[in-house]
């Protein structure tokens, strides 16, 4: 247990000590080597890099240098990332073998290592994080501490105004004042639907009942989206603090975080954070010497997409099959074990402390008229700078894809961007300049969703993409209501027919009819939005559907049944690279002779396409 005075002392001392993390001119002789330990970098050996640095420093008996594990810096495409503070030098794609050189050349001799510096898209080498175009248009609120602090040390969180918002709320504000502040800020739910957060809190507070609960939805199921995971991995205390604030407002004493079991690092750091907060008396009884008591427990999900739906999530916490309940009653009135329950998404919570500290006016000055603040996107697919970006609402898709994302690899054309995952839709080229907010995305047939943003180039077949999403929904439909259970299956079958070259124009009509019925008749968000990928691709890429149905052609060469890979005799120089690359030995021909593909053996994997230096292989 720490007293308020002790907490202030820790904050002050730690803030001084960590000034070099945020201030390049910090007055210190210390250096901090920050190594990203998010899931992306961990997959490419960043834990070994961390250990290697520690080993070398110990061996060389170097003092005043600390190696720090941090959460995600955002630019996953350049991982593993190492940043040296206070000078803010950004080293990209570091290997364990590079550690020795970094210590010797950079730390001991004080020279930057040119070959490891991150390169911007135009090829210029950049010295620091802020010089990269990737970061210039971003505004970090929810990700403020990610990549700055060690997420496994509560003192580092305290150093950057940690738990100050909770202190302010408990000692200076009434629940109604807090709710008013949240309402004024204009923040809306970041899980996808965009329900006003303050309104939700108000409704749950107004519900009658002695026992109430606060729940954090960390069941990030949208494939290819990793915003919530990065926040939990990089700054878990920000979520705990916000949940405590919410609990104070609605009158709850117990909270649950429902997190995917597939996120082991996030689960581990959350548990560490909860234990530390309990030790400091920031969770438990008499928090900040008041009568307020609150504690949090983790509940693991077990791999069901539908559990991201709030009522299915509640069923799952209760230990049952995660099938959605019929609404109303909404969780605000009857949620966990029938008690009033407040459910917010991870990213929503990550904004709360900032709103309390900096004020609703500051927050509502960011963003568009009806969508305030920032949004975190997981940028992926055919884009150069794959990673995590946080931008003010109203930023255009073009800015995200080209300025921040660095454009499409191999100078290919932009075809579409997909937002909202299996519940969302595609945004075509003509809408690249749409400012992104809840309303504008809905208008063009997509949705904000939780923040997955997948870019596709012109080699992608839109019919196959629609089929991919339907396949997902079919396997994730919980089976409770018929339109979703059977309807999505039928839609998937039709799409399969189209992709196999067995479809007709009538099938396109059937798809539309089914889509509209499923949207109207399903009981939960998953079913109601399941046809969206088909509806939106049909809206913008109808021509492609027709080509599949009538001409039996796939212009992207993705639908195997309709494509045949051949070698252009005139262009082939007989180098034989394709023959070597073919995994099934389907390419025949003697040395220096023109090669031929044996169509019976060819599995159409496309490996040879990229192996040919003369671009002689195609459809």
């Amino acid at each position, binding site marked *: 247990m720490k007293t308020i005075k002790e907490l202030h002392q820790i904050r002050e001392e730690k803030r001084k000590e960590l000034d070099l993390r945020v201030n390049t001119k910090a007055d210190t002789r210390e250096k901090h080597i920050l190594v990203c330990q998010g899931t992306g970098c961990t*997959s490419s050996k960043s834990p070994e890099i961390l250990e290697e640095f520690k080993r070398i420093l110990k061996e060389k008996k170097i003092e005043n240098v600390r190696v720090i594990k941090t959460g995600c810096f955002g630019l996953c495409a350049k991982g593993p990332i190492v940043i040296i503070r206070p000078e803010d030098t950004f080293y990209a794609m570091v290997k364990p073998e590079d550690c020795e050189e970094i210590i010797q050349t950079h730390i001991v001799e004080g020279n930057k290592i040119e070959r490891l510096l991150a390169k911007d898209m135009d090829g210029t080498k950049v010295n620091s994080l802020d010089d990269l175009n990737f970061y210039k248009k971003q505004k970090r609120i929810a990700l403020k501490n990610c990549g700055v602090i060690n997420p496994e040390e509560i003192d580092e969180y305290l150093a950057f105004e940690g738990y100050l918002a909770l202190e302010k709320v408990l000692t200076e504000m009434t629940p109604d004042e807090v709710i008013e502040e949240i309402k004024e800020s204009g923040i809306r739910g970041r899980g996808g639907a965009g329900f006003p957060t303050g309104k939700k809190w108000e409704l749950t507070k107004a519900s009658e009942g002695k026992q109430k609960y606060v729940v954090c939805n960390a069941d990030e199921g949208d494939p290819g989206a990793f915003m919530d995971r990065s926040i939990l991995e990089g700054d878990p205390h920000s979520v705990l603090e916000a949940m405590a604030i919410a609990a104070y407002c609605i009158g709850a004493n117990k909270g649950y975080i429902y997190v995917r079991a597939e996120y082991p690092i996030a689960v581990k750091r959350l548990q560490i954070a909860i234990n530390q907060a309990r030790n400091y008396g920031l969770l438990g009884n008499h928090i900040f010497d008041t009568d307020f008591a609150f504690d949090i427990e983790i509940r693991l999900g077990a791999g069901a997409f539908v559990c991201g739906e709030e009522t299915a999530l509640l069923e799952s916490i209760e230990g049952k099959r995660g099938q959605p309940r019929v609404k109303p009653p909404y969780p605000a009135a009857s949620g966990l074990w029938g008690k009033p329950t407040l459910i917010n998404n991870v990213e929503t919570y990550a904004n709360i402390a900032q709103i309390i500290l900096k004020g609703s006016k500051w927050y509502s000055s960011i963003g568009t008229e009806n969508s305030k603040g920032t949004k975190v996107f997981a940028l992926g697919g055919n884009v150069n700078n794959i990673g995590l970006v946080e931008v003010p609402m109203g930023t255009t898709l073009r800015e995200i894809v080209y300025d921040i994302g660095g454009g499409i690899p191999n100078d290919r054309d932009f075809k579409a961007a997909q937002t909202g995952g299996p519940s969302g839709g595609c945004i075509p080229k003509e809408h690249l300049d749409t400012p992104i907010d809840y309303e504008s995305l809905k208008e063009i047939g997509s949705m904000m969703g939780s923040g997955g943003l997948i870019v596709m180039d012109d080699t992608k077949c839109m019919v196959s993409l629609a089929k991919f999403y339907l396949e997902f929904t079919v396997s994730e439909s919980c089976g409770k209501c018929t339109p979703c259970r059977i309807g999505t299956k039928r839609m998937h079958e039709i799409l399969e027919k189209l992709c196999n070259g067995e479809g007709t124009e009538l099938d396109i009509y059937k798809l539309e009819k089914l889509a509209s019925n499923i949207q109207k008749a399903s009981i939960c968000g998953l079913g109601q939005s399941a046809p969206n990928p088909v509806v939106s691709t049909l809206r913008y890429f109808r021509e492609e559907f027709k080509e599949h149905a009538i001409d039996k052609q796939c212009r992207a060469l993705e639908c195997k049944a309709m494509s045949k890979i051949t070698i252009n005799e005139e262009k082939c120089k007989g180098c034989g690279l394709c023959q070597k690359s073919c995994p099934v030995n389907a390419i025949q021909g003697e040395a220096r002779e023109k090669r031929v593909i044996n169509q019976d053996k060819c599995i159409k994997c496309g490996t040879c396409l990229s192996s040919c230096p003369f671009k002689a292989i195609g459809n």
Partner: protein
Amino acid sequence: MQENEDIDVKCCCDGNKKDKFIEEIFAEYQPIKDNLIQMLNEIQEHYGYVPMEVQKDLSEFLSIPMAEIYGVVTFYSRFSLKPKGKYNISVCMGTACYVKGSQKILDRLLERLQIRPGETTEDGLFSIEETRCVGACGLAPVFTVNGEVYGKATVQKLDQVLDKLMNS
């Protein structure tokens, strides 16, 4: 949801005596229904699947019908009724990986091992899973072997890894 035709599974315990791990779990948790998924997660982690016998023990311990437990186990994709192979290969089918060609990786894997996702080869060596986002989108497409991530995957890279595992 999960296929569940074959539920023929060997017993993990020694006659009537409960496995030591199960005894530990039962000592750790309160016998209330809410704990079911938490316990199943630990059981899946320990054995690599949820054995039928353990489901019966759970049914007694938590005083809920076996059918309900079976319903929960088959609902969530993380729980499996059959043991996984010595090498469990997961191909990421998240959108970021799909866009970068993970379908080709999966197709090749299915062709080489001649089993479907969720199945184990007869020799017990390999099993295949489709997963939704491993979280290494910067390395897409990725597949994992027993949790170890192979990034920027190609059909050739997969072949190399498979050949190595088959010969080891």
